[in-house]
């Protein structure tokens, strides 16, 4: 299960397309803002019935999000013992130094600047998806 947190519908569509093209066959859950993402990860609100153990194996996180921004989501994930081992890949438009530094300080596992070129975007997503899913996913959960 991959959690993709993205508010921009075009970027979302492109990301999903890229993941599909990368032959990532995992189930992909989409959250459209920070609050939704947190509900999903911590099994709250509409996801209250789910078990924490069935949470996402990877979180692809945009930084600029409505309601709760990406950095705060990252902080909550990395600050909680139950979720801190979930790999988080920050996937964002921002090349700003302070965003990069802040993300790494908060414990992101990787930081990817979304390129304008769709080819590069697909490449980046493919590498990310494969890398995290291959390396971090327990064999029993393999699709």
């Amino acid at each position, binding site marked *: 299960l991959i959690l993709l947190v993205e508010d921009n519908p075009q970027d979302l569509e492109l990301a999903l397309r890229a993941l599909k093209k990368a032959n990532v066959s995992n189930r992909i859950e989409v959250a459209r803002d920070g609050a939704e993402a947190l509900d999903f990860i911590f099994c709250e609100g509409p996801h209250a019935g789910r078990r924490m153990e069935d949470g996402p194996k990877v979180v692809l996180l945009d*930084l600029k999000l409505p309601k709760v921004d990406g950095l705060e989501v990252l902080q909550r994930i990395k600050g909680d013992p139950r979720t801190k081992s979930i790999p988080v890949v920050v996937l964002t*438009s921002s*090349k700003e130094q302070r965003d990069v530094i802040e993300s790494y300080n908060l414990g992101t596992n990787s930081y990817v600047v979304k*390129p*304008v070129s*769709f080819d590069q975007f697909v490449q980046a997503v493919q590498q990310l998806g494969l890398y995290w899913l291959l390396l971090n996913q327990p064999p029993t959960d393999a699709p």
Partner: protein
Amino acid sequence: MFDASDVLAGKLLVVDDQRASVLLLERMLRGAGYTSVSSTQDPHEVCELHQKNSYDLILLDLQMPGMDGFQVMDALKDVETEDYLSVLVLTSEPGHKLRALKAGAKDFVNKPFDQVEVLTRIHSLLEVRLLIRESRSHAKALERTNESVRAGEARLSGIVSSAMDAIITVDSEQRVVLFNAAAERVFKCKSTEAIGQPLDGFIPVRFRAAHTKHVERFGAGGETSRSTGALGDLSGLRRDGEEFPIEASISQVVVSGQKLYTVILRDITERKRAEEKIRELNAELERRVVERTAELEAANKDLEAFTYSVSHDLRSPLRTVDGFSQAVLEDFAPLLPEEGQRQLQTIRAGAQKMGVLIDDLLAFSRLGRRLLGNRVPVDMDRLVRDVLEELRNEREGRRVEIRVGTLTTGQGDHALLRQVWMNLLSNALKYTRKRELAVVEIGSSADDATTTYFVRDNGAGFDMRYAKKLFGVFQRLHRIEDFEGTGVGLAIVQRIVQRHGGRAWAEATVEGGATFRFSLPKGDNP
């Protein structure tokens, strides 16, 4: 004072026409110890001899043929310079004694004379003579001293009256005894009105007690002068009631057992006003600096927010344009005519170009906000070789000759200087792309204060008429079909170099290659 030997050294002249008398007197005088005794028997010689020798005492016989003693005395009066006729007359006629004294003789001796009497009278007269001489020289010395004292007083009073500072002397009762012209001006009070008045009249009421105490304490202490700064800010009081700030010093001196205090003071109204003005201006300046700093900080924040949002929001639609064009090409290529596919590719290229523009613009803007890092010695030779290595792809499949000359170590921010070399060297490689053999030369030269680095190429060059535009943001001197680029690279070079306190410039000819130079100040460690 004088002693016996001075008396015996007195110069004596014996005048007598009788040779026997002369000899007798001479013998007697020499026998008594007198060392300077001369004589004459010719009364006509006396004046001339006295003029020549200035005798201290003349022993004069009254009865002489041709010219008697009275005539000699009359003549002597005319030549006597010291206004004292030292003459002892010798006479055997009692009637002549009184006449002789009236004529100016100082004493007389009867002939024939008693030795002891004569010697005693001579001794006395010589003593008187010496005393008179001494008292006259004392008087002269005194006169000279008085004159110099008077001159000193005149000088001092000249100084006091022409002094710029007010000078007021008061006695031990603190009554004014001296009030100079400057004091008259400062206090608007004539000295004739001030003399004899208590000093208090020139001090505002609230300061009087403190001032009196201060002067008393000062008087009791051993100091001879002191500035009154210890009292804090002082004020004077003009006759018309106006108070004004003063600066003063006080000194004391005892004259004829009476203690006098002299206060020297100046009106510092103007200075205080100037100081106040300076304080106000400083405060104003401070306030403006704070305001401007706040404005700058706000502007900086705005700019940061702006770039942040550009960074995020402007790129996102471009991704959409590019991404969906790509998706169309991938999913519907068979349905599109070739021209349609080419046009979609053009759309993609445009979007990507805009992405690069945004990135470059942001990089340039970040440079403006970025603080200059530590200035450290930078090994330029190594830096240039690193950058050339990184640009290896640019040289692939081309004939490129690179000559690296001497590169002096520079002072600066390592990462920023790397950017400078990166931009200059990639330009050199880019604009020589159409040369069969590209030649790029790199080197440096130095003078006392700066080091100048250069990159020379044999590439496309440019027209010097547009040299001014070269370092402007988004300024390009070549067509995009010939050489790609956004026109930010040299603007970044210039900004970095300027922030290091240096400058960047270039010379070139069209198709004749270009030389780019930048200078850096040498900094503290040469």
